């Protein structure tokens, strides 16, 4: 019984989301927020693998997302859509539906291979120095793509919407919502299975005492390679979904600012906690969206009580003051994040009666 509760709950949640999207019970804005939430969950949990479980500091996560986004977008447009540069679709667009998961996975594989650029130096360096390498990788990826004019360079790349639309021509369903929900469940599921196994716990041993891990028969280099490649590969999946959900990407949407956003989610949720990362990704997305409405309200309020001169307006840029401020407050008052390194089931032991992971 317990074995199925979580799966059943997930299935019900996923189906209700898709049905609501299908019958227009949610407007497009709400749908896009939910999709962003899913993508953020994937990003936060995958970064948590490196920053939380393995105790390294990767601050270039958006770089891997970027690789996944570009590779899967180029492939899907090349294969299944008519494009100005790539010409007619190589295959009949109606197959796009069946090969889409494969394309997203290929984006993930490309991102995982990019992850090697970080994984290989991590054999010799760690800590701050490795953090600088991850930052460098983020910039390398962005400037490489900015200089490839075939895929739009700094102007960005689009056309993915056509692929999604041709899916709806085959079967009329909110496909993007379905892919994001499936992608999120898949990503969290493999990450969770990895860290819950004795195999995967080897990376936790590395974070706590690398020397002891190596001496106690953990192949630390192999584990680091797996952790970095898995983390960046899953980020690539998130990138592919992001690109197709929005239909347009440009290199600058994967810059350090997005990496920071993901890091905030990980630290908000708690290092080394899967459920914490999921929870934080949901809360963070809601917070960012709420600020969209709160900031104009705040602006109106400040003007009406005369605290601000008429010439000044609080703009959306203030988001980037408020979010870091939240991070500072968090580090002051609860440095271990919402859940610390515990899972939801450890914090509320009663929950454990209702579900069981495998």
């Amino acid at each position: 019984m317990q074995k199925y509760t979580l799966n059943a709950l997930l299935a019900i949640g996923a189906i209700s989301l898709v049905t609501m999207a299908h019958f227009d019970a949610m407007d497009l804005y709400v749908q896009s927020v939910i999709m962003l939430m899913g993508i953020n969950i994937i990003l936060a949990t995958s970064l948590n693998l490196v920053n939380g479980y393995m105790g390294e500091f990767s601050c270039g996560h958006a770089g891997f997302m970027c690789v996944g986004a570009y590779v899967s977008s180029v492939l899907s447009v090349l294969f299944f859509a008519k494009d100005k540069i790539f010409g007619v679709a190589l295959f009949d667009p109606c197959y796009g539906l069946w090969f889409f998961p494969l394309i997203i996975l290929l984006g993930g594989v490309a991102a995982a291979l990019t992850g090697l650029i970080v994984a290989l130096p991590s054999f010799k360096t760690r800590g701050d120095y490795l953090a600088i390498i991850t930052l460098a990788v983020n910039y390398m990826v962005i400037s490489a793509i900015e200089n490839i004019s075939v895929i739009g360079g700094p102007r960005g790349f689009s056309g993915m919407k056509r692929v999604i639309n041709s899916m709806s021509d085959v079967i009329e369903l909110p496909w993007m919502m379905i892919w994001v929900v499936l992608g999120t469940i898949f990503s969290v599921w493999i990450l969770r299975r990895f860290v819950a196994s004795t195999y995967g716990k080897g990376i936790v041993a590395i974070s706590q005492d690398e020397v002891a891990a190596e001496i106690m028969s953990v192949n630390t280099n192999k584990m680091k390679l797996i952790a970095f490649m898995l983390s960046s590969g899953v980020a690539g999946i998130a990138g592919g979904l992001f690109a197709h959900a929005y239909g347009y990407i440009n290199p600058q949407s994967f810059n350090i600012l997005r990496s920071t956003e993901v890091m905030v989610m990980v630290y908000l949720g708690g290092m080394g906690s899967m459920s914490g990362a999921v929870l934080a990704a949901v809360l963070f997305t809601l917070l960012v969206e709420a600020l969209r409405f709160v900031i104009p309200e705040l602006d109106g309020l400040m003007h009406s009580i005369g605290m601000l001169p008429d010439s000044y307006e609080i703009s959306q840029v203030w988001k980037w003051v408020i979010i870091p401020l939240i991070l500072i407050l968090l580090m002051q008052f609860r440095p271990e994040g919402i859940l610390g390194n515990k899972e939801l089931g450890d914090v509320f032991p009663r929950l454990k009666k209702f579900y069981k992971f495998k």
Partner: protein
Amino acid sequence: MALLEIKGLTQRFGGLQAVSDFNVCIEEGSLVGLIGPNGAGKTTIFNLTSGFYQPSEGTISLGGKNTAGKKPHQVTAMGVARTFQNIRLWHDMSVLDNIRIAQHYRLGYSLWDCFARTKTYDKAERKIESIARDLLEAMDLSGYADELPNNLPYGLQRRVEIARAMSIQPKLLLLDEPAAGLNSSDVEGLIKLVQWIHREFDITIWMIEHQMKVVMTLCSEIKVIDFGATIAEGGPEEIQANPKVIKAYLGDENI
């Protein structure tokens, strides 16, 4: 047959010769001690044996196989387990997890099994868990399986560290100052524990120890080194009477 054979082992760190021309031949099933004043190079020898350093010169062979060029985790997989002078448990993991992870080299399943949760995975995880539980039971630690090592008293942490090393199912166990920081009743317990492990698991133990009581009761043979060079070897009584050893520890009498 000799389980561990070290020949002409020399280790230099820049200009410093930490170990020079060290030879030892440890027979299977013996319990041997390695003593010497601080900075004599004892831990360096252990680090070399466990593959943490690559020797500048000399060979280390384990059961006839040379360990040169092997990574520490590969040497461990060949059957060498060790403990550390200052306890190095994974502090934010339960005692049980500590013991499970130390079996990493013989998990017996691949990454794919881990994602797909195949039968191989289930079987392997069950086996690892049962080995870990049995070991905790045998070492009188089963009550602490879910505790974090940090919350245990120092003596118990030592015991957990030895249990973790034993979970590798080694042929050779290296104990680096197991009695350091223990009070006298813990030391009694440790002596009994080491004797029990030696008998029960039928393994070879090589230990570094400063407390003479421990070394003299446990070891049948002792090697003394100073400044990286061997100065004496023999049974406990011989060592205690050896003037060179007394000189190394207490200094020259006519200063």
